[in-house]
């Protein structure tokens, strides 16, 4: 697909646009730039980029509005850039449909890795929920069809809640799932008694899957925002 090599940067600071373009041009042929939210939305609609990098401090629109607008007609991965925004604001943007956020000043390597990971995931056929897809991460294999997990070949028993938590995280690998998103998908409601126990369930899943639960490599904590399943870059 030719358009998959086109990326869009929406940022009012020319220096940041240049830096982002520079970081992305190594991997991708074409990086478009927009200096305002309006211009960004127009370019996104016209060019159908494979991924959008969106700065939150735009002069004409809030990042949340741009995000909501795009999500109205596209599932294109959106990576948000933020300078001083609180964890709550970041989580709210992820809830609105942004895929990831990067805090300034970011490391170029980290940024490139995130973008690659989102592009790869976007290119996957949207079948992870059904079929006989098996997810391999380290010595852990998650079989979504059989609803089973093995570690070093040995069967790992998970409680229904733990399985559901792992399935939601794994099928969104690379994406930071906010606490709210996890509550609503695992417990089928955004808030409830179980809300408080989410972190306890995550800790207990880690004990069953991670080599060192204190230095997790599969389920990563995004402090104040949520958790991310690391598919292994």
């Amino acid at each position: 697909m030719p358009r998959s090599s086109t990326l869009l940067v929406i940022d009012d600071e020319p220096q940041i646009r240049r830096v982002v373009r520079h970081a992305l041009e190594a991997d991708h042929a074409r990086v478009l730039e927009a200096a305002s939210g309006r211009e960004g939305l127009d370019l996104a609609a016209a060019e159908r980029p494979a991924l959008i990098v969106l700065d939150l401090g735009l002069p004409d629109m809030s990042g949340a509005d741009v995000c909501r607008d795009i999500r109205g007609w596209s599932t294109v991965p959106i990576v948000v850039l933020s300078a001083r925004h609180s964890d709550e604001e970041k989580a709210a943007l992820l809830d609105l449909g942004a895929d990831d956020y990067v805090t300034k000043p970011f490391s170029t390597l980290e940024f490139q890795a995130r973008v690659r990971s989102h592009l790869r995931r976007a290119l996957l056929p949207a079948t992870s929920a059904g079929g006989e897809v098996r997810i391999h991460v380290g010595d852990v294999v998650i079989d979504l069809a059989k609803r089973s997990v093995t570690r070093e070949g040995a069967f790992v028993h998970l409680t229904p809640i733990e399985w559901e938590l792992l399935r939601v995280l794994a099928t969104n690998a690379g994406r930071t799932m906010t606490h709210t998103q996890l509550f609503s998908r695992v417990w089928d409601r955004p808030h409830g008694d179980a809300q408080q126990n989410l972190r306890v369930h995550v800790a207990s899943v880690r004990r069953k899957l991670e080599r060192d639960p204190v230095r997790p490599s599969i389920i990563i904590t995004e402090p104040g925002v949520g958790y991310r399943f690391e598919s292994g870059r």
Partner: protein
Amino acid sequence: MTPRAERPRDADAPVREVSSWFLWLGALAVVTAGLLAVRPHLDKAHVALAYLLLVLGAGARSGRRLGIAVSVVSFFCFNFFFVPPHHTLVVAAPLDWLVLAAFLATGVIAAQLLARAQSEARAARERADEVDRLAALGAEALNAGRAEGALTRIAEVVRATLRVTRCEVFVRDGHDAVTLVAEAGPPPSEARTAAAGTTPDTQAPFALSMGGARLVEWVAVSGRSALERMDGGVRVGAATEYPNDPLDLDVTGAQTILIPLRVRDRTVGVLRIAHSKALTLDRPQSRFLAALAYYAALGVERLRLVAEAEHAHALREADELKNALLASVSHDLRTPLTTIKALAHDLRMDGHERAATIEEEADRLNRFVADLLDLSRLNGGAFTVTPELNAVEDLFGAALQRASGLLREHEVSVALDTAEPLLLGRFDFVHSLRVLVNLLENAAKYSPGGSVIELSVEREGDVLRIVVADRGFGVPAGEEDRIFEPFYRPSGRPDTSGAGLGLSIARRMAEAQGGTVTYEPREGGGSRFMLQLAAADVSTLDSPPSSTESL
């Protein structure tokens, strides 16, 4: 201007007294002559009643002494003219002695009682006047637009009432220095020449000498009254409890009097009165002075409160400005930092190894800005805490991940048994993470590369104790508390990087959620920093997490 205070100074008083003696003794003569004219028709009771009326009149009009004098003279006239045998002091009938004695006693007692009743009435009137004046002054003092105005008014009233040359009010500040805030009367230099004109023999004019200024300070600090005498001597009052009597001194011969102004057991200022001649204060005057001193104390306290409120307001505004500035600076700094970091990265990719330093420095600057921003949020109260149920493992994992960049040269050993049930706490994850990262960074900064930093946790009752222990340089003796102050740097270690905010932010963030951060030296060298947080239990998990693992 108490009437009673005025009386002894009244030059006409002796003249008036002599004339009233003449008047009443004259009246006595006239009455006696009148009675003599009709003596054959009179009973002794008529005479006694007529004289008694005179005694009462004299006592009521001109006081006790004249009353008693009139009754004694009447007694002799009664005896001489009207008790048989007439025109002699001999008394024939023994019963007449009784009449005469009763008359004399009645007259004297009546004069006494009248005089006392009158003096009480006068005192009551004076007290009422005094209360009126004080009430008016109090209302005036409270209503005065500025506290200084009220104090000046009080100084003026003191000066006019006590008829002294000058009255001054001093305020004591937090550093025990005193400042003149209100005055009435001519400034010391003018008064000096005036005083020199009237009392040429006075060697020590009452000008506020260097010693005088120090005496004001002494009174302010000690809370005891003092006076300077005409001969230059200084006397001080006992350390007694206000407000019984602020003036517990014999003021005779004093030229200046200094009274401590006290509000709620605290000396807030000094009232000083000075006169060109020797001062005399009678009882009502010193009582009046005491009452005014209390008003002055309230005025001084008001002055202090107003100044404090203005200061607090200014501080708040400065604080808001600082916070706004920091927020804006932190945002504006991050954009260039992003560019610098990215360009340094490109340089490094092109083979410029030293560009890595630029990236590290950019990160350091960014951390510094974040620290400043956090400190200003903690100070400004715009700091929200959301305690939630969290697993200690999760906190450790996030902390090790976040601190990994700064822990490259150290080994971190974690003592946490994952076979044991999960250790849980109720704390704010993000803030606690910040605390733990700061403690780990601190350990890395102050211990040699290659050494081991130990991270452990234990639960004691309702408390989780997380310990970061290093084999570093420790904390110099005597600085154990100072290390938690912002911008602290250990003495004798100039080579450390950072602004010295990490530990102070750590402690403040822990305290904001009811936790603590403490330090103790580690046995065998090094430091132990302890983070205490509230422990928690979970009983309502929909399935027990630890018992279902299979091989």
